């Protein structure tokens, strides 16, 4: 008897079918068979298998190969204590730092009962682990317990409808309001128009040179390797030079989107835009910020725009709440900038710049952000009001530290955004013009 009572098989009964693909059960069972046959008299492989499934259910990416590795690792290490066992499994199953807490919690919940580990370690042999697991049901870390006790608790997520919200446009508040958001799905026509618009998109700093080479026919720079290997085709009689030049690629793009109350009307367009951008390019990172910063890159990578948006909105907790631009940028600079801005990224900052906090943190953090990226482009939807002036305090703090200030006059569709970004940078995009106008006024 192993602990398959709760973790076994295809439990896609909670209405999230995409978690369990149809062939999953078959594949897993095949894997189970091979693990079993590897050690016919031991229950350890099976328990490790179920443990790995628990981890997978909790959102970690644990492939079948890692499970085999884990079993092999436990045998190789010949562990003697709980701590060693923990770290042996950790070293094989965890390969991102973020997964450590999930693993920790899962390990605690899964291996805690009835001296399970101790007995397992003693003999590497058949044993009966806990049978009645009902009483153990205690809330641990949310995701792990969801994975362990899948289908027991109903999803009680409440979704607030945007149409009953107070329209907070043009106001800024520092208060943290945590809420979820539900967007309308994308229509087929909208999707088609968005694709068309995206195909014309040319971002500022669209291409940069790399230090790698690509073969060309124009005489730029001699490529000795190709020259020699082709010359041998003619037996070395004819040595014709072959050429290469530096390859050009898109630089990485980091999109920072303001999702506070004052920007609520546009969040959907921005997220769709980011999703479409990710389809086109490889190195795009997306963050949302209101009162906290959330990395939604992985969620937006899903192919289907509606699915991606749903995943992203689920992971963001501060929809349409207050704005703390300075504090969230600080968090971004501290935790993320070194990880995502490393390769000369272009930062697209989408915000109205309405900051509530009255200190100089915003200016400091903008300065830091500006100095860690290749180009900082501020996209401000407030500019659709003619006669906009850089009066707000936050805007005045941010303007000196951006390279380009892009207006968006009307913003009903992704196409508008693409037009605003593709236009070559002119006088109007120079942040100093706005500052001068402000001082003159």
């Amino acid at each position, binding site marked *: 008897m192993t602990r398959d009572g709760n973790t076994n098989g295809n439990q896609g009964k909670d209405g999230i079918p995409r978690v369990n693909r149809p062939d999953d059960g078959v594949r897993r069972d095949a894997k189970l068979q091979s693990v079993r046959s590897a050690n016919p008299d031991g229950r350890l492989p099976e328990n490790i298998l179920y443990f790995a499934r628990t981890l997978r259910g909790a959102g970690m*990416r644990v*492939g079948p*190969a*890692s499970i085999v*590795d884990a079993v*092999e*690792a436990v045998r*190789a*290490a*010949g562990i003697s204590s709980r*701590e*060693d066992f923990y*770290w*042996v499994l*950790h*070293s*094989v199953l*965890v*390969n*991102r*730092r973020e997964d*450590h807490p999930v693993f920790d919690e899962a390990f605690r919940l899964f291996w805690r009962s009835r001296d399970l580990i101790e007995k397992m370690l003693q003999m590497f042999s058949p044993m009966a682990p806990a049978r009645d697991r009902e009483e153990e049901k205690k809330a641990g870390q949310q995701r792990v317990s969801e994975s362990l006790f899948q289908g027991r608790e109903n999803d009680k997520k409440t979704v607030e409808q945007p149409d009953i919200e107070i329209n907070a446009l043009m106001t800024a508040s520092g208060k943290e309001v945590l809420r979820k958001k539900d967007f309308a799905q994308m229509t087929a026509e909208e999707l088609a128009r968005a694709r068309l618009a995206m195909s014309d998109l040319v971002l500022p700093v669209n291409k940069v040179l*790399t*230090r*790698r*080479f690509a073969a060309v026919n124009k005489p730029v720079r001699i490529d*000795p*390797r190709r*020259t*020699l*290997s082709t*010359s*041998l085709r003619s*037996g*070395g*009689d004819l*040595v014709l030079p072959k050429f290469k030049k530096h390859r050009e690629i898109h630089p*990485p793009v980091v999109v920072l989107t303001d999702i506070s109350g004052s920007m609520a009307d546009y969040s959907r367009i921005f997220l769709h835009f980011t999703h479409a951008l990710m389809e086109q390019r*490889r190195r795009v990172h997306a963050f949302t910020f209101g009162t906290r910063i959330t990395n939604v890159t992985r969620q937006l990578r899903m192919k289907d725009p509606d699915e991606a948006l749903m995943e992203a909105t689920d992971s963001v907790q501060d929809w349409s709440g207050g704005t703390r631009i300075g504090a969230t940028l600080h968090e971004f*600079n*501290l935790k993320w900038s*070194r*990880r*995502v801005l*490393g*390769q000369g990224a272009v930062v697209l900052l989408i915000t109205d710049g309405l900051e509530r906090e009255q200190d100089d943190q915003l200016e*400091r953090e903008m300065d*830091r952000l500006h100095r860690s990226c290749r180009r900082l482009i501020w996209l401000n939807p407030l500019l659709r009001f003619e006669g906009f002036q850089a009066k707000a305090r936050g805007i005045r703090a941010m303007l000196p530290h951006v390279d380009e200030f892009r207006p968006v006059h009307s913003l009903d569709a992704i196409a508008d955004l693409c037009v605003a970004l593709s236009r070559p940078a002119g006088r109007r995009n120079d942040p100093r013009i706005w500052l001068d106008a402000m001082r003159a006024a």
Partner: protein
Amino acid sequence: MADKAKMPANIDETVALLEAGGYVSDRALATVLFLSLSMGRPLFLEGEAGVGKTEIAKVLSQTLGRKLIRLQCYEGLDINSAVYEWNYAAQMVEIRMREASGDTDRDAMESGVFSERFLIRRPLLQALEEQDGGAPILLIDELDRTDEAFEAFLLEILSDFQVTIPELGTIRAKEPPIVIITTNRTREIHDALKRRCLYHWVDYPDAEREMAIVKVKVPKAGEELSREIVAYVQKLREIDLFKNPGVAETLDWATALIELDMIALDPQTVSDTIGVLLKYQDDIARIQADEGQKILEQVKADVRAAG
């Protein structure tokens, strides 16, 4: 260490092995290192700058008596400088020589020109070759500095320990090298590469371990000074600086203070030498204002209380 050093047989021996090389490790690191050695898997070390990632490879090379082959990654690193390159000039001369002697048979020419004689071996290829004293240690340093294209290339080497050279065929290692990969996480490494490795996040050490490290690495530092230095650095790591000082900075600072003949910290010296510890002007300004003074007072009080 003797050059016939044996591979550790369990985790305790791994800890001892590292200690013999002057590396104070925690249990987690020793576990993952032991597994990496016994399972023949590459070890993937991620962590902030200056926590001792590269040092592990150096210590291993020294204590196991293996040759250390280091590949420092940088943007634009390509196959020519990482794996192999042909000696073009010599190849040209060879072609001319053959022409002069009238030996222009195409196949003979091709196999003659693309033979091992004209092959320049770069670190990855060197690591697959036999060395005295056993398989070498291959250190792929700061992998995050190169681009994704290069990562994809490592996949073949890391899973099968072989390299394919179109003109020569596949070169396979008789005994797989011990591979250690480090990254500072300035970008995410692809999962496909991580999957082939054992992963470990190298964190800042706790006070106790950092104390042990200072004792081993800077033996000249007095008990009181080391205690204060470690406590001060640990406090700095708590206050949300842009860049926390690593272990390397702690050791540099301890050495600097000894050079200045200090036996205990005082506000003036801390302020004068803070550039050894912190490398960002914003952080330095913060500490040189009153925050540094507060921390120092607290550290002094704590050290006194601890005895």
